[in-house]
């Protein structure tokens, strides 16, 4: 993996795992004052990291019904529905009410992980293979479909060819569907894919076609690396930016949050 290469070639820089890289790069995309609807795992870690660095006024929402919590270091929740999520929250509401905040337009960014994504940012977390006769039945949408339908999305996931496919086996959470204005036509006028953060780079979507494109590569990653790990033709502009490697400070905060490496192993 390219992350390995980054570790070797930049021996003076801090050593980090692929998951830590994802968490740091995603955290940097969040802005102070935003309201973020976060899934558990990397999104949760990234949101807390942002809160503890450049975005102290970030409001986190969890689908369990939690508004504005401050999750404690070393006590990460196993899902967004246990009491650990509600630590020092401003308000607890029902699941339905917190999801309706998405529909009402209170949420700036939806933030979740992904198992499989396609060129137009559609996400699959339901079936590998045909839905009628799946090779693997995955856990399903949870709040993913609602978040992706109603908010601007950041997705954090591992960059592998089998995960970045031309067309997902099943659209669990909508991106731009078939590109262009097909999302709005389906009845989803708001929200849509904003960024996909991977261990190789940061991806965005072209304004017209809504196809995925590379915005930045992580240190030590080449255009060929990212193309080779993508299952469809992914344009990389010649003047593509290079991200700044995670700092010791960012990594220290992450490791304090997740000392047992539940989500950052």
């Amino acid at each position: 993996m390219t992350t390995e290469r980054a570790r070797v070639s930049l021996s003076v820089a801090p050593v980090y795992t692929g998951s830590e890289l994802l968490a740091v790069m995603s955290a940097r995309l969040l802005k102070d004052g935003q309201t973020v609807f976060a899934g558990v795992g990397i999104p949760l870690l990234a949101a807390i990291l942002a809160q503890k660095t450049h975005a102290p006024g970030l409001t986190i929402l969890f689908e369990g019904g939690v508004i504005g919590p401050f999750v404690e270091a070393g006590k990460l929740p196993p899902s967004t529905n246990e009491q650990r999520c509600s630590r020092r929250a401003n308000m607890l509401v029902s699941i339905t009410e917190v999801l309706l905040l998405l529909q009402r337009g209170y949420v700036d960014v939806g933030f979740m992980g992904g198992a499989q994504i396609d060129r137009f940012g559609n996400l699959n977390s339901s079936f590998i293979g045909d839905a009628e006769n799946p090779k693997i039945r995955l856990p399903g949408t949870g709040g993913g479909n609602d978040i992706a339908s109603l908010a601007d999305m950041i997705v954090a996931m591992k960059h592998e060819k089998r995960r970045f496919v031309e067309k997902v086996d099943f659209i669990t959470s909508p991106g731009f569907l078939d590109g262009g204005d097909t999302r709005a036509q389906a009845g989803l006028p708001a929200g849509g894919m904003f960024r996909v953060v991977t261990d190789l780079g940061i991806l965005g979507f072209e304004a017209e076609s809504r196809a995925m494109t590379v915005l930045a590569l992580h240190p030590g990653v080449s255009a060929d690396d990212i193309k080779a790990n993508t299952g469809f033709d992914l344009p990389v502009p010649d003047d593509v930016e290079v991200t700044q490697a995670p700092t010791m400070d960012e990594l220290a905060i992450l490791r304090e949050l997740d000392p047992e490496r539940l989500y950052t192993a």
Partner: protein
Amino acid sequence: MTIPSYLDLRSKTRARDRSLRDKVMSLEEAAALVADGDSLAIGGCTASRTPMAMIWALIRAGRRDLEVSRSIVSTEGDLLYASGVSRHIITSWFSQGIVWGVSKVMRAYTETKRARFEEWSHMAMGLRYRAGAMGVPFMPMRSMLGSGVLDRAEGAKTMECPFTGETLLLVPALNPEVAIIHVQRCDAYGNARIDGLTFMDIDMAMAANKVILTTERIVSNEQIRRHPDQTKIGFFTVDAVVEVPFGSAPHECYGLYEPFYSHMDLYAQMTSKDPDAGAQAYLDRFYHGPKNWADYLSRIGMAELLDAQRRGSGIYDD
């Protein structure tokens, strides 16, 4: 799927004894209120406030073919499949929990078509219970559109909004025959207080034709009446009250105990290699084997119980 007629729904409610009366009974007596083939809604979410003792009693009573619905399903869904209590679960997400990965038991049952996992979005589940609670046949919403989830969701329909011309999704009401909900405390009449996250439980209680409450402890009606603003589920919706300490074990009950993590690890381990045999072994050891609920807790172990309680009640320590 068919939506029950509004007048049938009302007449079922009329036929219930909705009076302020003592409804305290045993787990076994409460299990007898659920019939084979009933639709059953389960309160809580993932590993939180799962009415595990009631599920345990239904499995021990050998109930069959319940159509189960829940916001998000964790290990209890595996066990409902493996025991034959349910072959059809309606939910938005189904696995033990992110940290344990995809449920092997859920996979084994659904991929071989021995059981069905009917997937709706989380908000759709919530609004389906809400429609049921409101006595209307559907609720409009703005997600699931354009997705594969919509293609497979039985009974969901799109419509053109008569006011704005927009495309909206209509999700059908869920009025479960029975809802089982675990709470921290209630009185003998079923006035329940819920600490922390309420999930979809309040709508679920209003939507159901029958509600069985399990509770960590029963408090006096006097105590309830001193703070009626704290009553989240009203006595008039409740048909049975069962006092069961640690009634969500090995899942959590807000403010009292967190998930029993080592036991959850043990479960994942037991079901990872051979999910079928593993789930049966787990059922034998923890469901069919114990003499009673106290024996079940003993088999999970005092050390685990105390650890979960220390972590759970810790939220009130500072």
